[in-house]
């Protein structure tokens, strides 16, 4: 059933798009933020038997509230397993993880990512960023990765300032030569559209464009000669159900809007969000016949 939502936000469109990338029965390595919203939507719609691994040591949680971080207590709420990061990272390196969601500040045409620094001198960066965290591990070993990124016009670059997380490196055969177990990125979901990677050249091409986005604007936001699919289509909008699920899980738009700004210093609003989450989430879980 595709009862599309009439009103939805761009983050909601992106999360719904990623949710559709997750298949039933899969094991996914999910970071918090938008990927978590997407994973939750998938679990309650197209992939009821998929389970989530969270980086700091949780598998298959069934939380009734919004997780805050990869090491957040919510991640082991009613989980199948709780313990170490090495359990989930080791399982991933051994090939058990079907799909992982990652992001970065810069990306190139082979899907390589930079989340470490901006500038051309590693030792004196213009802007220092977070670093790999688990992104390099997921990009190296997950069977496939889905990349979620903001497109700001400057971050789809010809050459990365630093290669933090491997995509297809220099092209066909490069991952195998490097000894990487995973097979690399299959999709890039951005604020402008959806990109795939060509099986022959391993180069990114535009497959879908978001409703209302101008193709020339997309091309201008990509610093290399962007390949566009001859069958370019418009991104499928989120369904009403997908949007309902997102707003039930994240009522203050902490991940899907500017909820963080409103919560800064506002303890009561923050706590009320949690205290009130139990019943609506439980109802949602039950409506899907889950436990």
């Amino acid at each position, binding site marked *: 059933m595709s009862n599309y939502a009439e009103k939805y936000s761009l983050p909601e469109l992106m999360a719904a798009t990623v949710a559709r990338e997750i298949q039933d029965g*899969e094991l996914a390595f999910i970071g918090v933020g938008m990927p978590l919203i997407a994973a939750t939507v998938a679990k309650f719609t197209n992939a009821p038997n998929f389970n989530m691994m969270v980086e700091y040591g949780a*598998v298959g949680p069934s939380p009734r509230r919004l997780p805050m971080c990869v090491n957040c207590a919510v991640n082991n709420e009613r989980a199948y397993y*709780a313990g170490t990061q090495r359990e989930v990272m080791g*399982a991933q390196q*051994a090939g*058990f993880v079907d799909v992982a969601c990652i992001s970065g500040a810069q990306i190139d045409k082979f899907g390589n990512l930079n989340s470490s620094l901006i500038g051309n001198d590693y030792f004196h960066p213009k802007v220092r960023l977070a670093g790999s965290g688990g992104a390099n591990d997921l990009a190296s070993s997950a069977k496939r990765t889905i990349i979620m990124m903001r497109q700001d016009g400057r971050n789809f670059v010809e050459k990365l300032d630093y290669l933090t997380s491997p995509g297809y490196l220099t092209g066909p055969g490069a991952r195998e030569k490097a000894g990487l177990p995973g*097979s690399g990125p299959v999709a890039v979901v951005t604020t402008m559209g959806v990109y795939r990677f*060509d099986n022959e050249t391993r180069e990114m091409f535009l497959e879908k464009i978001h409703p209302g986005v101008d193709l020339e604007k997309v091309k201008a936001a990509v610093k290399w000669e962007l390949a566009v699919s001859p069958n370019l289509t418009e991104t499928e909008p989120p369904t009403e159900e997908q949007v309902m699920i997102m707003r039930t899980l994240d009522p203050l738009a902490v991940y899907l809007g500017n909820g963080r700004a409103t919560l800064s210093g506002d303890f009561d609003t923050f706590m009320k969000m949690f205290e009130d989450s139990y019943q609506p989430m439980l109802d949602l879980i039950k409506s899907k016949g889950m436990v």
Partner: protein
Amino acid sequence: MRYEPVVAPKGRAKPPVNKIMTAKEAVSRFIKEDTYLGMSVSAAPAALIWEIVRQRDRIKTLDMTITSQIGMSSVLIGSGLVRKLEMAYNWGGIEGEDKVFRRAVEKGIPRPLEVEEYSNFGAAVRWQAASMGVPFMPVKSMLGSEIPKYNPKIKIIDDPYTNEPVALVPASYPDVAIMHCSRADEIGNVQCIGLYGNTDTLARAAKHVIVSVEEIVPQAEIRRLPNLTTIPYYYVDAIVHAPFGAHWRESSFYYHHDLAYGLDAYRQFATQEGYEAWLDKYVLGTKDWDDYCKLVGYDRLNRLMLSEHKYQKFGEVR
């Protein structure tokens, strides 16, 4: 560019579906001729071993990887199924000398047995390497001994950081692993209570995993105590409900080792004829584990359980 998107292969995760089946089904489905079989020692998967022997005409030959085995592996060796044994120790423990093992190695009875040796830790980290998807693990055991002299798979290198010698052992990926554990839910989340040796890492190393358990519990019980989950569902192919499934050995917090039975079995194992008489009666002569338990006697098994619970019951003060 043909604009044909990259399609990635699936991961190795087993899906979260109902995995409960009988030992007969599990062994038939996963264990074939020439299977490279891994086996846990804590607890001993007796119910699964018995079923493998019942299907020996179909299976014919197994190569095995263990750390240490105390008695139970000899049930397989004596049956003529085992061609090769990768091991650190194979003996009777308190039951004493393992004549079955001796006959196979010294005299090739009932068939020649090739032995590939490691130390216990050396054997265990081979599974750990596989569980992490790395080709080897470094270890400080076995250096200076003659174990590497007769096992070329053990490589001694100079550590590139300290230049001191370190031994490398290669990852071991069993085709199938069999193990006996405390409890599991129907999709295969397994919880081991008490000591469990290397059962956790063996399950992570193997391509297919068959777990027999004392109890099957609801998913909600697993979710209630997620820190007790020893083997998450994605490693597991089959859950076999086999109460007392480690007899004559122990199952921590469930029942005690039946030494009287073990010593008596070992007395019979002293000759191949004695071993076969025992096998005919207790293994081939029983159609499944429940049938074996009836033959041993549930009164006897129950007394072993009550004795264990007099001293320890998980989560309780005794």
